[in-house]
């Protein structure tokens, strides 16, 4: 257990990022009840946005982030109004396939436009680090985690106190009663979806300097997000936070303590997903809805 401190630091930093990665997906599912298999592509496009802002105009990813999030949010809102409102009451199969197809389109548009080359946005601070006791803390990851915590915190405040946030929680609990409150359901769905997309874009912006940017990076993140969501209970936002840290810890531990661990860490999400679905399909926290 010689790396315990380092392992803890790495898990926490990764967990914060995973929380941001998953919270958008969890939010949109909790409210609209449509699971978005194209959420990974919002992350991917956010990462490319940050990469190009850095490469073309020398804009730091963190400065580009608000603009990219705004664009992503608008795109998500419009997309929902055009495509998703048509399938809200369709069978699950149609919803799955529509969002899956949308993801496929976005992946391959990215592939066609920007090729499959691995890229990375590298602002200077990404490479620095400092010592904390026996452990090394990478500044890039720390900043990423801090921003993730800020955004997730902001989302919670919005859900708890904002007029629209409260309305979206009500909508998640009972759509018909929400209509009777005078809530414009389709618009609220689209707003939630837009916020979800914006959070995905933010995740990608942070990822652009921490991992390779490729057209297919989103798929991997999508599967990890599913593992986390399933771990925390579908539609349960608080559960998702717990799940994110659990997965981060499991992956980090595997990569430190298992021989060949870096490779096997990639399989942790799949194993978690598979076994949780089999043993406890409602997640570790049971069937709670939005808190």
């Amino acid at each position, binding site marked *: 257990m010689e790396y315990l401190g380092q392992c803890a630091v790495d898990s926490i930093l990764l967990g914060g990022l995973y929380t941001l990665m998953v919270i958008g997906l969890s939010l949109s599912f909790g409210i609209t009840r449509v699971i978005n298999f194209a959420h990974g592509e919002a992350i991917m496009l956010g990462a490319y946005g940050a990469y190009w802002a850095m490469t073309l105009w020398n804009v730091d990813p963190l400065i580009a982030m608000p603009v990219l999030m705004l664009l992503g949010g608008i795109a998500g809102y419009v997309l929902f109004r055009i495509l998703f409102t048509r399938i809200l009451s369709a069978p699950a199969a149609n919803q799955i396939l529509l969002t899956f197809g949308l993801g496929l389109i976005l992946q391959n548009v990215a592939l066609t436009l920007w090729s499959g080359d691995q890229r990375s946005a590298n602002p200077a601070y990404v490479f620095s680090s400092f010592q904390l006791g026996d452990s090394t803390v990478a500044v890039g990851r720390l900043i990423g985690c801090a921003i993730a915590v800020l955004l997730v915190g902001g989302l919670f405040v919005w859900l708890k106190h904002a007029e629209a946030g409260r309305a979206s929680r009500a909508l998640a609990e009972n759509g018909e009663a929400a209509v009777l409150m005078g809530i414009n359901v389709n618009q609220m769905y689209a707003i939630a979806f837009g916020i979800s997309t914006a959070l995905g874009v933010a995740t990608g912006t942070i990822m652009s300097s921490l991992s390779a940017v490729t057209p297919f990076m989103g798929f991997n993140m999508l599967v990890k997000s599913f593992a986390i969501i399933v771990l925390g209970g579908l539609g349960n936002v608080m559960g998702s936070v717990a799940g994110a840290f659990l997965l981060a810890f499991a992956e980090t531990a595997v990569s430190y303590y298992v021989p060949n661990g870096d490779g096997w860490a990639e399989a942790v999400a799949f194993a978690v997903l598979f076994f949780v*679905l089999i043993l406890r399909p409602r997640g570790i926290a049971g069937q709670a809805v939005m808190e």
Partner: protein
Amino acid sequence: MRMQASSLLRAIPALLGLALIASAFVDMPQVNDWMFQISMLIIVSVSWNLMASAGLVSLGHAAFWGVGSYASMIAATRLGLPLVGGVVLAVAVGALLGCVLALATGRLRGIFFAICTLALAEGLRVTTVMLPDQTGGASGLYLPQALQVPRTALFVAGAVAAVICAAASVWLARTSFSYACRAMRNNESAAQMLGLDPLRYRMAILAISAGMVAGAGAISTWYGGYLDPDVAFSMHITIESQIASILGGMYTVAGPIVGAIAIVALSEATRLGLGAHEGASQLAYGVVLVLGILFMPRGLYGLWCDLWAGRIAGAGKADDTATEMAR
């Protein structure tokens, strides 16, 4: 007259099947290749559709395909098992995986089941990469020279397998099995109350579906002569298997077959039209998937049925649409 016409209609599938097998003996490599692609696609889409008919949306057909491919390839490299043995082994291993998946997923449905299959395929891919001693890892496995068979034999094998799978789906559609599937798709608890044991049906469906795809994976492995985790567990398989059913018409017998032919035509068209760009065909698939779900959820076959019905009862149908729109 009418009798003759309908029995002719019924003979068309059999004739098409014979034509597919016969095409293997035509000495035109391009045609052979198309037919082989169509055969493989018919198998995976018939299998996908069979599962979808029972409400089990698969996003992990690559898992079945890859397991069949690896079973036959490993048996060939280690034990020298030839093509026929390899295919039989692959079908058996695939069916076993199907049963295990059915037992493991229990009563999971819809999104949960879909996510589970997705995880299965990706998890198996990573596992294969991580066990190079058993599977050859990322550097892959080559089919031993001694076991290679003439291409014609592979084309025949592919076509025969496709005909068997299509025939099996036709046969299943005529038994009470299809009613059970539909009942499960609509409401599994209700199906249970009708006296069906959903788990047994699930095991049967998954074993048959997975076995079909695994067998196709084995034949395709012999055709390619090489296997690595990205080839075996390619997302492409998963995508093609669902898209053919949707384009052709979900929940019908003819849909996946019509869809398989249409998809091969589409991917050849994009290849010829846009060049061999790696993203072009997938992009086209995505567009077909989205537009198909939005505007043609019953697929080409459903469209054809509507047109056919429209020709018979033209005026009546038009009235119905008019009243529908007036509402």
